[in-house]
C-alpha cells in the first residue's frame, strides 16, 4: 500500500496566513497574552506552537511561554498496538496553575489525542482554562471535543489521509489530502 496525493489544500503562504489569524484570535479572545501558555503536541504541533507564539510576540511585544507535550503515555490504544510507539520528550515551562493553556496540534480528527493531552496537562497542575488551536479540522470526532481556533476546515472521508508537512520536520510547508492505493 502506498499513499497517493489527491489534492494540495494549503501552501506555505496559506499556512502562514492561518497562523497569523489564529495568533490574532487567541489574543483577542484572551484580551492579550498575560497568563497564556502555548503547548504544542508532538510532533507537528510543536513547531506550530513556536510559530504562533512568534506571531503573537510580534503583535503584542511580550514573550509567550511555549511548551511541548508528548501524549504517547496517555494514549488509549497502547494495549491495542503491537509494539510500543516512540516516546518523545515533554517540556512544560513553569507551572500551569492559574494559566490559560492553549493546546496546539496540526490535525484534529477523532479527538482522542486532545483527550490524552488534556489529561496530561491536568497532571501538571490546574490551569484556569484550556483552549485548542489546530491547523486543520477534518471532522470524524469520536469524543466530544471541538477546536477554539481552526486554520482550515477540511471535510474528508474517513479513509483519506491529511498530510501536514512543516519546514522544521519535512523541509517544506504544505497540507495535502492523500489516499491509500494498492
Amino acid at each position, binding site marked *: 500500500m502506498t499513499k497517493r496525493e489527491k489534492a494540495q489544500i494549503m501552501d506555505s503562504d496559506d499556512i502562514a496566513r492561518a497562523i497569523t489569524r489564529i495568533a490574532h484570535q487567541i489574543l483577542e479572545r484572551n484580551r492579550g497574552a498575560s497568563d497564556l501558555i502555548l503547548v504544542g503536541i508532538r510532533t507537528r504541533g510543536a513547531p506550530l506552537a513556536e510559530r504562533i507564539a512568534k506571531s503573537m510576540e510580534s503583535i503584542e511585544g511580550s514573550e509567550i511561554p511555549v511548551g511541548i507535550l508528548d501524549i504517547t*503515555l496517555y494514549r488509549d490504544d497502547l494495549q*491495542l498496538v*503491537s509494539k*510500543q510507539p516512540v*516516546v518523545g520528550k515533554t517540556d512544560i515551562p513553569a507551572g500551569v496553575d492559574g494559566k490559560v493553556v492553549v493546546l496546539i496540534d496540526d490535525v484534529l480528527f477523532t479527538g482522542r489525542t486532545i483527550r490524552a493531552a488534556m489529561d496530561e496537562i491536568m497532571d*501538571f497542575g490546574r490551569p484556569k482554562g484550556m483552549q485548542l488551536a489546530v491547523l486543520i479540522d477534518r471532522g470524524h470526532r469520536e469524543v466530544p471535543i471541538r477546536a477554539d481556533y481552526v486554520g482550515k476546515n477540511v471535510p474528508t472521508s474517513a479513509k483519506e489521509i491529511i498530510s501536514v508537512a512543516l519546514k522544521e520536520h519535512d523541509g517544506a510547508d504544505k497540507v495535502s489530502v492523500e489516499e491509500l492505493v494498492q
Partner: protein
Amino acid sequence: MKFERKDLLGLEELSRGEIEFILETAGSFVEISERPIKKVPVLRGLTVVNLFSEPSTRTRISFELAEKRLSADTVNITASSSSVVKGETLKDTAKNIEAMNIDMLVVRHNAPGAPHYLADVLHCPVINAGDGPHEHPTQALLDLLTVKQKRGTFEGLNVTIIGDILHSRVARSDIWGFTKLGAAVTVCGPPTLIPPDIESTGVTVSYDLEEVIPRSDILMLLRIQTERLKECFFPSIREYSDFFGLDSAKLERAKPDVLIMHPGPLNRGVEITPEVADGPRSVILDQVRYGLAVRMAVLYLLSGGELKSEDSD
C-alpha cells in the same frame, strides 16, 4: 525503530541500535519524576511482580517506583518470605505467579541464567535485575544514560572499571554496553579479581590504578563484595584500599572533567573515600536518578504485548 524483544536479560545480546533506542526512550522518562504528579497512566491495569532472591535496596526500590510511576500494580516477593523456603522450585514459583495473570516479572537471583530460564518457561516478559555474577542490564543502561547525559557521546571515551571484576555482574554488563557504544574500556584490580579471559570481550587489563587514572574519562568503582569473597583474594581490605581505593590524592592526577561513578552500595573508606564520593566529580546520585528513568523505559518498551492490530495514529 521498535523494540522487538520479549525480555531484557542482558546487554550481551543487544545490538548497539537497541541500546541506543532504550537510552533515547529513557531520556524522555527523566522529566516524569520531576512533575508535580509523578505518574503517567501508561501501564494502568498491568501487574508487575518483583521476585528478589538476593538483598537489594536501590534496584528493588527503583523498579518498584518505576512501576508505580507508570501506574502498574506491583507485588514484591522476597525468597526468605516465600515458599522457596518450603522447597518450591524456581519454576513452580514462577508458574504459580504467572497463573495469577501477571503481565511482567522482574527477577533477581543468585544463579546466573535464572532469568533466562524463566524467560523460556513464562509467556510474560522477564526483566533481569541481576543474576549472580553474570549480568545486571538495567544498571549498565543507567550507567550509559548517565554518561550520555553528561558527555553526549561515547566515542573516544576511556572508561575504567576498578575493583572486583571477577564477581561483578555490573562490570560484565558495563563492558558490553560501553564497548558496543564505542568507548574504550579498561578493567583494573588485583590479578586475583580479574577473570583470565577478560581481554576476549575487547577490554584492556591494568593492575596499576595510578597508571590508568590520568587517561580515564570515567572512573567506575565497584564495591568489594565481601559476601561473594569466600576465598582469600587479597591480603587485607586496607591493602586493597591503598592500591585500588580512590582517594583525593590519586584523583589529583585525573583529568579535570573525569566522572566518578559507583553502582552502590558504597563501602566508604574501602574502594572510595567519602571526599571523593561526595565530591564535585561524583555522579553517583545522578546514576540513581537516571536509573529510575531507565527502568521506566524498559518496562514501557516490554509492555507492548502480542500483536493485536496495526499501529495507528
